[in-house]
C-alpha cells in the first residue's frame, strides 16, 4: 500500500495552522504535438540541485537554477529543506535524472534533451509564490527554448 502522505503532513506539522492543500477539480490537458522520439524535452527537478558555484536555496525561495545538460555529476550539489538529501548528494540522479535523460537522447527514445535543465528547492510553503513567481519564469524559459514537452520530478 502506498504511504498516505497527507495525514503524515498533518501530523508532522501539527503545531502549525493546517496546510491548505491545493485541490484541483479540473485537469489541464495539452496533447503531444509529435511523438516523444521527435520531441525536444525539458527536465526540471524540485530536488534543490545546484551547478558548480550557483548559490544555495533559502526558505521560501522561488528562484531556480539553470543546469547545463552536459554537467558532470561532480559539479552538481544539493540543498533542500524538505527531504533527507544524503542519497541525492551521493547521486543526484535520485531526484534529477540527467544521466537517464541523456541516455534517452542518445538512444533516440526522445528527440532531444533541452539545454539547460532546471531545478528549484521544492520546500516552498506558499503555493502563491510558486504560481505567481516561479511558474511564469519557467514557462518563459520553456517557450524561449521551443520545447515540445516538459518532464517534472518533484522531490
Amino acid at each position: 500500500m502506498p504511504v498516505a502522505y497527507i495525514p503524515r503532513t498533518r501530523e508532522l506539522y501539527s503545531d502549525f495552522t493546517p496546510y491548505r492543500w491545493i485541490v484541483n477539480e479540473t485537469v489541464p490537458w495539452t496533447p503531444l504535438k509529435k511523438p516523444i522520439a521527435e520531441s525536444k524535452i525539458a527536465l526540471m527537478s524540485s530536488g534543490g540541485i545546484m551547478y558548480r558555484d550557483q548559490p544555495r536555496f533559502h526558505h521560501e525561495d522561488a528562484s531556480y537554477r539553470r543546469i547545463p545538460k552536459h554537467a558532470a555529476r561532480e559539479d552538481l550539489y544539493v540543498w533542500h529543506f524538505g527531504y533527507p538529501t544524503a542519497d541525492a548528494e551521493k547521486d543526484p540522479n535520485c531526484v534529477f535524472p540527467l544521466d537517464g535523460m541523456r541516455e534517452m537522447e542518445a538512444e533516440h527514445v526522445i528527440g532531444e534533451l533541452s539545454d539547460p535543465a532546471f531545478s528549484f528547492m521544492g520546500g516552498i510553503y506558499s503555493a502563491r509564490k510558486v504560481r505567481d513567481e516561479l511558474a511564469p519564469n519557467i514557462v518563459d524559459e520553456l517557450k524561449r527554448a521551443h520545447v515540445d514537452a516538459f518532464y517534472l520530478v518533484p522531490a
Partner: protein
Amino acid sequence: MVEEEGIPTICMTSALDITQSVKPPRAVFVNFPLGHQTGRPNDPAIQRQIVRDAMHAFESIRTPGDIVQLPYVWNPTDRSWETGDYTKGWMPERPSRDAADVAEAERVARYAK
C-alpha cells in the same frame, strides 16, 4: 500553467495521495521513499528504467489525470521505510546557517580558480 501555455507535461511522484489531490495531467508513481523519485543512488539500471517508463507514459496516458503506477519495490525484504517516511524525527538536522555559508564559500572558491 505550463499545459495551459500549450506545453504537455509529465510528473513523477512517490506520494500517490498528494498527486491524486493535485491532479497533474500525466503522472508516474514509484513507491520509493521521498527523495528517490527517479531511483536508488548509484543504481543506473533502475534509474534508466524509471526514466524510460516515464517517457513511455507520455504517449500511453490518454486520459487527463491518469497515474501510471510502476511495479518497482524499494527493498523486497524490508518495508520499514514505509512506517518512518515523513514522520517526526525523519528529517536529519540541517547544517547551521554559518556552516552552510562556510561550505558554500569553499565551493564558490573552488570554481573561481
